[in-house]
């Protein structure tokens, strides 16, 4: 139902993903008001944020050490059973980070409206879906009506042309975009990422780009579907099969915008000029090339505070600076190609003495696939810890945290103060840069180790 001058549009939701942290209060609303969950068949639940990554806690040999986390997990089991929602529970071999499993199962499809009580729902836009994060009240709205009240967003085209140089990845593209437009540069907008460099990316890489749209403040990020998209989805369990597949693809081919489409704003970037990127401050827009320095000065009012929190000097060179922890994981960079990239750097090498490195696959299926290729052996031989899937150290809800004052090179999405633990200092980078920095124990340009 379209927007009017007095009322917002009513938008039907094709896929509602839920997890243990932002859903319990919404289930309570259904109970309090005696409402049913309208479309359990369009709702899919997993547990990822507060779940342990240690094998014995995941598979029941030992209890979940954090009681409040165990309670959230139990509550989701109770809620899904009562309202008939399919739950990929702790022991399920299909469980994983909500934004990893939706695409992996083929539930994420072009043209769908997809929501989840999680800001990184923008990830699913990589398939040409309109996907965005919502709050818990809205989770309740979707439970009860399968709809949301929405106003029409503005549009922003981000065109990335040129070819990436070796050692430069999708993560570096999106960090460069955020550096260029700023952390509020996309507020009120949906971004369409397009251009030669975007078309050349795999689905894993496109997901990394759309995932971080929210870090530029955008309501959603999208990439038009193409043959890469269809090839990824074909045959996945939730994807249409047989004749329905043909009908779906025919519809999906009508989705890309017209060549002359007009956007409210346009931004351009040349991928061939990029180097690996790394953040130096306390939001993702505080970012520079790996051979660069912390700015000598900035008009950002939180510049001084960010430097003091990070323990950096203005104008300081970043490469060679100390690293204590390395995290490869999160909905941004925990897919099989990310793990392969990190493993390619670590193969035949050891992580530096005193560095802790955690590798947390995005899903149990990715974990299994990585083990079939022997990636786990490479990580373990290098001295890294190989864990069960989940959000883990991206936000430290499950107890996987970085200690105060320590420097973590992380493949995740947010370097806010305290994000990975109270007083933790986060440097966002690609899996290649993270692995190279683990080997040297200092911020390292991965091109030196390739």
């Amino acid at each position, binding site marked *: 139902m379209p927007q009017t001058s007095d009322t917002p549009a009513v938008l039907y939701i094709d896929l509602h993903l839920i997890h243990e942290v932002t859903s*319990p209060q919404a289930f309570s609303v259904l109970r309090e008001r005696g409402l049913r969950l309208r479309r359990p068949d369009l709702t899919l639940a997993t547990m990822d944020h507060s779940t342990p990554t240690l094998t014995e806690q995941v598979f029941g040999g030992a209890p979940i050490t954090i009681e409040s986390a165990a309670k959230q997990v139990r509550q989701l089991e109770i809620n899904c059973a009562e309202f008939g929602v399919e739950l990929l529970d702790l022991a399920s071999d299909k469980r994983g980070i909500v934004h990893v499993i939706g695409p992996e199962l083929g539930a994420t499809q072009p043209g769908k409206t997809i929501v989840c*009580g999680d800001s990184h729902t923008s990830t699913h836009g990589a398939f040409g879906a309109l996907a965005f994060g*919502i709050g*818990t009240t*809205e989770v309740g709205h979707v439970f009860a009506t399968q709809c949301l009240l929405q106003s029409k967003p503005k549009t922003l085209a981000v065109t990335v042309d040129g070819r990436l140089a070796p050692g430069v990845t999708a993560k570096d593209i999106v960090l460069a975009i955020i550096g260029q437009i700023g952390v509020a540069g996309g507020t009120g907008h949906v971004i369409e990422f397009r251009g030669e460099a975007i078309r050349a990316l795999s689905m894993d890489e496109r997901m990394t780009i759309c995932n971080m749209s929210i870090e530029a403040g955008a309501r959603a990020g999208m990439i038009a579907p193409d043959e890469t998209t269809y090839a990824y989805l074909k045959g996945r369990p939730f994807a249409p099969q047989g004749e329905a597949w043909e009908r779906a693809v025919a519809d999906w081919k009508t989705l890309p915008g017209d060549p002359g489409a007009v956007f409210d704003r346009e931004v351009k970037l040349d991928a061939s000029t990029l180097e690996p990127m790394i953040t130096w401050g306390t939001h993702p827009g505080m970012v520079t090339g790996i051979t660069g320095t912390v700015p000598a000065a900035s008009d950002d009012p939180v510049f001084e505070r960010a430097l003091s929190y990070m323990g950096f000097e203005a104008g300081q060179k970043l490469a060679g600076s100390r690293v204590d922890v390395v995290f490869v994981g999160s909905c941004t960079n925990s897919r099989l190609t990310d793990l392969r990239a990190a493993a390619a750097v670590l193969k035949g090498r050891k992580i530096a003495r005193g560095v802790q490195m955690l590798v947390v696959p995005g899903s149990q299926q990715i974990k299994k696939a990585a083990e079939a290729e022997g990636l786990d052996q490479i990580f373990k031989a290098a001295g890294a810890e190989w864990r069960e899937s989940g959000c883990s150290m991206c936000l430290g809800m499950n107890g996987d945290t970085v200690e105060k004052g320590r420097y973590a090179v992380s493949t995740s999405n947010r370097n806010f103060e305290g994000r990975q633990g109270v007083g933790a200092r986060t440097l966002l980078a690609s899996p290649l840069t993270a692995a190279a920095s683990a080997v040297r124990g200092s911020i390292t340009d991965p091109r030196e180790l390739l």
Partner: protein
Amino acid sequence: MSAAPKGFEAVTSRTVVLPRTDIDTDQIIPARFLRTTTREGLGQQLFADWRYLADGSPNPDFVLNRPEAAGCRILVGGRNFGCGSSREHAPWALVDFGIQAVVSTEFADIFRANSLKNGLVPVIVDQATHAWLLANPGVEITVDLKTASVILPDGRSAPFPIDPFARYCLMQGVDQLGYLLSKNDEITAWEQRRAARGY
């Protein structure tokens, strides 16, 4: 989280000022406090890492701990307030603490949508008004929903944009879920068309 919060037409209060820009929801309420299954009592953890020292005692330098902040219901923040995570725990924590309006020049989209559903008014003012409010902490101002404007101590007023439906819901204490439920017939009709697609 039952019915909508009580409706109100205006809030008048002294301001408490947090001038920092890009205040993200991890600062408003850190992730370790999200391991809860209810929405009550989160005000205690509002700005926890800024508000409390390592030993758990209040940080006397933090503005919300100063005596003059007691009872303030309007928070003035730097630009791009509420960026980051979609956690509704952020507005829940602010409301539980007693805040009814946040004033800035810009809000993150999800935080703004969440606030409007919890009786918390996100007030977007022009640069000059914002600069004046940042420079004059503790002044008494009114956030008036009837006229969609902020009234300053000298009687000047600055308009703020607010979606008419959201404003109506805030003023009347109307629950948006009730409105959506009233659209049941249209939703059912759409579901039938959607099913006919065949995939």
